[in-house]
């Protein structure tokens, strides 16, 4: 299951990024990047830790747990669809499914499970799927990402990688322009966070949103702010992007849900 299944290239890419940020931020521990921009801004980090003591997303975790444990009309439930009954498994998502040759995110797996049991799929922009995945993320806290790139997954991985390093939108930015080249610098008043650490804490409660949202919602926002038309949540391109980004976070500790500005 573990590291062996990561193809050599994918592992090299991840190690290169870790080395890049170790050099850029010699005083920041690898594991601290899981706190995003707060790892790079001590003043804001203090405020943020106080918020995390009384997290605004707590009711949503409870709601997610309730939904997760509500039986389908056929009597079965989510637990039956997942290994370890769905508890503490997010560190292995997204995963590549060799049969469909698709990247399966946790959201996608939740809906597969529903459809398998004759239930209609949940909307990817709705509250229910966010609550359920928030609960599942919560049960995975403290685990380390262990995403494999098995044979056959290279194409999906490379598409995600290409997306990350390609400029888009009228303003002409790649994700890497901001979160790699300019990481640690202020864009307006905002310190740009590093690529490593970007996958650890979703769904996240953003004060701007006033609610929890998944990582694809953040992708859409980062696309739109450079003038690009955002893609659909859970589109193939966004799933491949999440796959690449999460492989880059291999070895980092999950700390979701979390709060962000």
């Amino acid at each position: 299951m573990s590291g062996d299944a990561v193809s050599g290239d994918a592992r090299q890419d991840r190690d290169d990024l870790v080395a890049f940020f170790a050099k850029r931020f010699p005083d920041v521990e690898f594991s601290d990047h899981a706190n995003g921009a707060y790892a790079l801004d001590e003043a804001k980090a203090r405020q943020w830790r106080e918020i995390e003591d009384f997290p605004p997303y707590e009711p949503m975790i409870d709601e997610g747990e309730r939904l997760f444990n509500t039986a389908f009309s056929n009597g079965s439930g989510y637990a039956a669809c997942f290994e370890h009954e769905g508890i503490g498994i997010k560190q292995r998502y997204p995963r590549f499914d060799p049969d469909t040759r698709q990247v399966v995110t946790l959201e996608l797996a939740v809906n597969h499970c529903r459809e398998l049991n004759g239930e209609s799929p949940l909307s990817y922009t709705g509250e229910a799927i966010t609550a359920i995945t928030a609960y599942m993320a919560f049960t995975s806290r403290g685990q380390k990402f262990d995403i494999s790139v098995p044979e056959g997954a290279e194409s999906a991985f490379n598409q995600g990688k290409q997306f990350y390093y390609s400029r888009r939108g009228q303003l002409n930015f790649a994700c890497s322009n901001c979160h790699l080249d300019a990481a640690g610098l202020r864009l307006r008043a905002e310190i740009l966070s590093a690529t490593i650490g970007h996958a650890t804490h979703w769904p996240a409660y953003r004060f701007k949103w006033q609610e929890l949202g998944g990582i694809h919602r953040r992708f859409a926002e980062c696309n739109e702010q450079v003038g690009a038309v955002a893609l659909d949540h859970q589109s193939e391109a966004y799933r491949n992007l999440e796959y690449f980004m999460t492989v880059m976070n291999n070895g980092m500790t999950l700390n979701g849900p979390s709060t962000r500005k």
Partner: protein
Amino acid sequence: MVLLAASVHESGFAQTEGRVQKGREIAFDRNKGNCLACHWVKGAELPGEVGPPLVAMGVRFPERAALRDQIWDASRRNPETLMPPYGRHGILTELEIDLLVDFVHTL
């Protein structure tokens, strides 16, 4: 364009001042130049630091054309620049870029 042509006759200091002021507004406007996202400019609150402070522009760009080029398409000088191609991608109009050049050149 029409506006520009019409005003050539009223030239003089006030006219130049007006253009510089308009250019400044474009530079500071988040929906136009948004230059402060990356550059320190005199009078800026909470500027970004992705690009160098815009100072001594008249000295650094004796040729206004070179300054205009940088704003129109910074990737000509540096293919991997982080500065958006304001002219090439139509982010600003040609007139807006001319006004910006007038403003930036005073810095």
